[in-house]
């Protein structure tokens, strides 16, 4: 009897151990299996999805003068000299490509799963989805400016675009390159869908709004040469509340608010490289666009023994859409559609707040070409180091408006590299690492 009791007792004890079913159900903390809308939304605050501008696209522009030695093989030097391969080697994540396809991965996670999130209203889910679509469009667009030819509607259906990835499973194989046209169509249709669902305002300027999507569309259409649409979306975006900061009213650049509180910024994008464009040297050519009456020339620069450097911006530098950019887009579209009055009106809105009041005179143009020249020059001044120059160089080169760009050693006068008009170098090569994994991928 006693023994039976022991057996029952021991069986009970063992059973009590195994019966607490919840024991193994506790999830580790600090790690998240996304399931709520807020989980996906939080991804939009990540470094990955906010630092989407590749700094290499600053080093390759004619805004910049680099004192890299001829044998320097850093990414900055490789970009600066428009070398075939920008990367240090074929092991590292390739510049521009690796960074932006990672952005696309994160966006795809949201696109794929957010509508099935466990909580949240459909409206909220759509907002998060819309923002992911916009970030993804922007990533594809930046990739296009680097790895595809400048957009030409006549040849776009045959030109090479980008692999359009939708999978989030890393063990799959990447799709081949789509055409430039279908890549561009995807960018626009996604941005249009985003524009439809995005909210009117957001928590800070890194997070997208309806106007942000419109501003982005305006930028894309300008690149495509679709000036009516570029102007249309710029106009729409300008309806969002904003202000231009009058540099005459502030005593130093410290008067400019930190970037994500800056009323001139519509949709902020940061760069993956912390320091850019601080201490990047102004090229001699860029300096020719300024004179002493231009407050930007003093406010936004620092001089040292090496030359004229870009000053540190208040807060993290912005490479996303700004309101001055939109004014200039409208001005350019107007000049190109021979509306000189509107072009000058828009141009002067910017000039008025950047040029010393005492020296300010409204700009005028005799003909549309004159107007366009003025607008493009103002673009150099206003949008220097704002991440748009490479895209501008590309589209201007296509229409024959880009002069030769030369890299020289200032001490010796040796020419180290030349970017000739219509050079193949305007289209970067598909990185070696990507070619390795995708031997069938067509190269540029």
């Amino acid at each position, binding site marked *: 009897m006693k023994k039976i009791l022991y057996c029952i007792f021991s069986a009970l004890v063992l059973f009590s151990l195994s019966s607490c079913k919840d024991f193994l159900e506790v999830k580790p903390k600090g790690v998240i299996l996304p399931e709520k809308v807020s989980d996906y939304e939080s991804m939009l605050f990540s470094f990955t999805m906010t630092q989407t501008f590749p700094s290499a696209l600053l080093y390759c522009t004619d805004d910049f003068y680099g004192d890299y030695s001829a044998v320097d093989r850093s990414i900055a030097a490789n970009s600066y000299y428009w070398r075939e391969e920008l990367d240090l080697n074929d092991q590292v994540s390739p510049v521009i490509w690796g960074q932006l396809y990672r952005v696309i*991965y994160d966006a795809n996670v949201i696109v794929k799963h957010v509508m099935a999130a466990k909580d949240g209203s459909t409206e909220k889910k759509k907002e998060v989805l819309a923002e992911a679509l916009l970030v993804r469009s922007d990533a594809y667009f930046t990739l296009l400016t680097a790895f595809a030819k400048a957009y030409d509607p006549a040849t776009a259906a045959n030109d090479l675009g980008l692999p359009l990835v939708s999978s989030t499973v890393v063990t799959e194989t990447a799709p081949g390159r789509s055409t430039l046209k279908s890549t561009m169509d995807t960018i626009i249709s996604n941005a249009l869908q985003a524009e439809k669902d995005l909210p009117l305002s957001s928590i800070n300027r890194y997070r997208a709004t309806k106007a942000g999507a419109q501003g982005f569309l305006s930028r894309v259409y300008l690149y495509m040469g679709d000036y009516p649409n570029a102007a249309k979306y710029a106009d729409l975006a300008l309806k969002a509340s904003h202000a231009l900061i009058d540099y005459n009213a502030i005593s130093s650049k410290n008067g400019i608010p930190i970037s994500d509180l800056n009323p001139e910024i519509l949709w902020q994008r940061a760069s993956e490289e912390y320091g850019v464009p601080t201490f990047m040297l102004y090229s001699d050519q860029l300096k020719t666009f300024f004179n002493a009456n231009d407050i930007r020339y003093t406010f936004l620069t620092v001089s040292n023994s090496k030359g004229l450097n870009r000053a540190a911006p208040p807060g993290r530098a912005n490479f996303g859409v700004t309101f001055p950019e939109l004014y200039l887009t409208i001005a350019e579209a107007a000049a190109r559609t021979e509306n000189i009055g509107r072009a000058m009106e828009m141009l002067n809105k910017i000039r008025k707040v950047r040029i010393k009041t005492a020296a300010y005179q409204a700009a005028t143009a005799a003909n549309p070409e004159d107007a366009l020249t003025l607008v493009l020059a103002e673009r150099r001044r206003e949008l220097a180091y704002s991440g748009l120059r490479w895209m501008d160089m590309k589209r201007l080169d296509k229409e024959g408006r880009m002069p030769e760009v030369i890299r020289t050693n200032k001490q010796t006068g040796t020419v180290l590299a030349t970017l000739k008009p219509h050079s193949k170098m305007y289209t970067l090569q598909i990185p070696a690492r990507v070619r390795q994994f995708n031997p069938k991928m067509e190269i540029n």
Partner: protein
Amino acid sequence: MKLFTQSRKIALQTLLPKENGQLKRILRIMKLTAVLILIACLQVGATTYAQKVTLKAHNVALENVLKEIKKQTGYTFLYSNELMKKANKVSVELNNVVIKDALNDVFKAQPLNYSFNEKTILIIEKRASIWDKVNDILMRMRVQGKVVDSVGNPLAGASVKILGQNVSRSTNSNGEFILENVQSGDVLRISYLGFQPVDRRINGNENKSIVVVLQRDITQLQQVAVISTGYQKVNKSQLTGAASTIGEKDYNQRVAVTGNFLENLEGKVPGLVYNGISGEISIRGVSTFDAVKRPLIVVDGFPTEIDLSTINPNDVVSVSVLRDAAAASIYGVQASNGVIVVETRRGKSGKPVFNFRSTFAFQSKPDFGYMKYMGSEEFVQLNRDYVKTGNDASYFYDDYTPMDPVRKVLFDQEDGLLTEQQANEKIAAIGSYNNLSDYKRLFYQNRLVKQINLDVSGGGDKSTYLLGLNYVGERPDEIRSKNNRFILNVANTYQFNKTFSFDFKGIYTKNQQESGKTAPYADLLPYDRLTDANGTALPATFGELKESFYAINAAYNAKAKAVGLYDQAYYPYEELFANTNKQSLNSFRGQGRLNAKITSWLNLDLGGAYENEQGVNDQLRTEKAYSVRYLINSKAKKDPVKGTPLFIDLPKGDFLTKQTLRKVDYTLRGQFNANYYSKDSKHNISGILGMEQRKTQSDSYKTTFFGYDGQSLINKPVNLQVLNSTITPVFPEVGSYGSRFNSASYYSETYDDRRFRSLYGQATYVYDRRYVATGSLRIDQSNLFGVDPKYKNKPLWSAGLNWVINEEAFMKPLEWVNTLQLRAATGFNGNVPSSFNGPFLLLNSRLNTMFSSTELFYDVLSPENQSIRWETTHNYNVGLDYGLLDNRLTGSVDVYYKKTKDVFGILSADPTLGFNQYNANTAAIENKGLELMISSLNVATSGFNWRTGLTAAFNKNKVLAVQPKDKTSSYDIVTGTDLQKGYPMNAVFSYKYAGLNALGQPGVYDRNGDIKIMNTYGDAIVDVDFEDLKYSGTTTPKYVIGLNNQFTIGAFDFSFLFMYYGGHIMRVQAPNPDDMNYNFPLQGSAGYWKVKGDELKTNIPGFPEYGTPGDFSYAARYGYTYGDTFVRKADYIRLRDVILTYNLKNAMLKKIGLSNSQIRFQAQNPFKYTFSGNDVDPEFIDKRTGERSLPQRPFYSLTLSTNF
């Protein structure tokens, strides 16, 4: 069962003529059929009453005993069957005893009595008469005695027990005991660990004071027959896997001076490699990258997760090392790297016995000469050449960047500010000083350690106790450092009744460490002065870690001070006092086990262990610390009117960072233990079946006080929002780059909760003591979601066989073979990756401080990957155990093969899919090896004993498969740790260095013998590939041999342990002038190529002259620094310890009650020999880079121990 076997053997030996093997075998078979009945010896005696009886019986029915007595004596017994039913079973040992005494013994515990009637003996029921009672009392007596060893030393704590009764005593410190109520004829068994037990019969007429002399049991000392797996104690003859045990005596051969219990294991267990410098421990090689590499450590049956310093080496009774699957897979996924099972002391019943041990240890300052730091003069020369060749110029510097003072003079000379003579004078003045001896004096001291251990143990029949205290106080070799550890431990056992027993252990540990900050020597230029004549700290040229990015030069520093900012120079000697780290760790571990006997063959263990560890780390950085000053300076704001600094966002003052750590874990276990014998005892089935639940929870919190004042306990508010944002310093006086403030370094929280539930079982079947089969199975479930459910319930198992050859009949003639058994086992172990990976997408959380309002964000930690699996290791082991010549020569040989599949590693991936690499099951690795252990007693005389122990392990590791990796630059191969198929895990590849050409350029040979000057970043990339490189060997030793000799010469014990590590290689640092810029160059680096022709004299590349044909990129230099010329064999022998013990036999000490007193002198690492050149110590070198680390001098200690 064991007892029975022994008695049977003795009986047989008495009975049989030894030479008659045939008869012996037949009789043996006959006797075996009668195992449980009775075995007796017949002796032909004289007549009637003087008949004598010789008989041994264990639990035999009275009737059968009487039958045997009848057979031997001819007396007949008269009794009824009714009466016999009331009789108890009999256990007696009679040797030639007269029948009267024999019957007295047999009937002692019977409810029956007997009476003689001529040749007949009548059995009647016992009635307790008054006479009987009086007689009983009168017959009882008091016995006192003394237990001594063969030399006459008293043995304290020896156990004295009356056989067949539940009475036992321990001897006191004088070896004396007193037993009351002993009856004539009672047998006392006197036993003491390490001695052969003695049985002494007490006769009524004998002197009631006895002296018992115990002889040392050499075989028992050499062999520990039982191995604890933590879950159960297994007889060695029933083991099928590879496991070995170190007993208390062997473990205590050495004093673990600093209280690290792992220290004493080196060289004692084959296959176990312990690195005393790095603290790494491995069993049978390593076969994983990402997953846990350390063996599981089990204390008294339960795994421990807390700091290993809680284990007091003075308490260790045995350490078992489970090496293969059959031994270890009962621990499931945690056992892939083997298991170390530690058993600690429990009390022994008897009078309280106090143990006292005190150790004092000394080690002189580390040996800086070994580092071969370049002197000042040579360093100056390097600077001159560096500047002369155009590698440095003043225009490379920003206005505020600090400059090497020698280069500054040279630049000034170039600029015409100084004449050559002035420059030379200045440089000579700078280079005449070298700071190494000052550095050593200011930052280092001799290391001192003291340890005191005191414990008391004792107890009665029903319970025992042990209470111990241990204190270790250490003054490490770095000035301002001190460590203190205090352990209190309790161990109690209770036998409540026949059914229930309980056992409890508790440990409380307090560990405190304090240190200042020893600035690394590499932070300094050799001519930087540390202090002025008054001992006041002086600034170094560069900043902390020789950085010149945030650091500013003296001119700018003066400007900074002038505007009211902190002095921003780096004062290495000041750092020692400006930084204080205090760590305090309190740990508690308690465990209990209740055992209930259910039937004779089944019992139940219910137990658990609970551990709680609480730690606090205080890091105080005063405002004199460089890191504090430059951070505050760079975050200062400016008064718009006065232009003076405002410390608004980050106040002036000290930083105190406090981190609390907590770890709580428990194990609960319910386990049935069975041990069943068949009636004829031919079959034995034993095993365990249990369920276990484990939880390990750890968390930590970190917080920081700024503007802290330790006296007033005041701290000041900060503006974290602003501090986190990225702004350049307001004051250009402190440079252009604002130092980063990452709030996660000041405030953070971690939390980890891991839970396991497991079902496990183990079974052993023994047939006829000759054939053993074992099997085990375990299923682990956990809350880790890194594993696909389909792999979650994967059972881990083992199976093994053991053939106990010495039990075979045909082995009996070979008397010199005492033990011989052949084991074979196989099994499956798993390992859990330590990083988070899984088939699901996992996100981690962080804070994005880039925004003006900080936001939480999630980002991808590991992408979706459906192919993830656990790592699995398949084990095979075959072993042979032997004991020869009365076990004077014992040992074992094991051969193993381990194949680990699905090893976790980094897989190179297509960045188009989002990731350049991710974690995946990428590789398969095999480990095979041989391990042997030999222990021999070479000489055993009363005055001199010599024992030798040898352990040897040979391990071969090979990567069988690895996911194809893409082309890698040769530099990545020679410096990296990537797996290469067909080579060991830690393979090193080198360039085939071709020396210098006439231009001074270093070249390497490719596979065709052509010389290449490598250039990775030039316009023409020149590189060699894998096929052009030379395989140099592996950095993991292939052979580990420990040779231990122990001598006993009279009162002295002397032992020494040699360790040999071999079969591996190391890279040694090349003398390289270029190290001046990044590292500290070795002496002799200045003998580099300067002009044409030097290539005939030297192999050292110099400084390439910019723009000349002889220019070469730094990639070319790798051909030299990573060339095969700087790879050496790492084989070395080290005299790990020499120990001399003097056992005090002073009569004075005995009088004052001290026994077992010892004085022990121990020297650790007094000698080493490196086969490839004794200038390098393979224990103090990074075998992959060749970088040296400060070697430790020999460590001497003196220990006093005694019992009272």
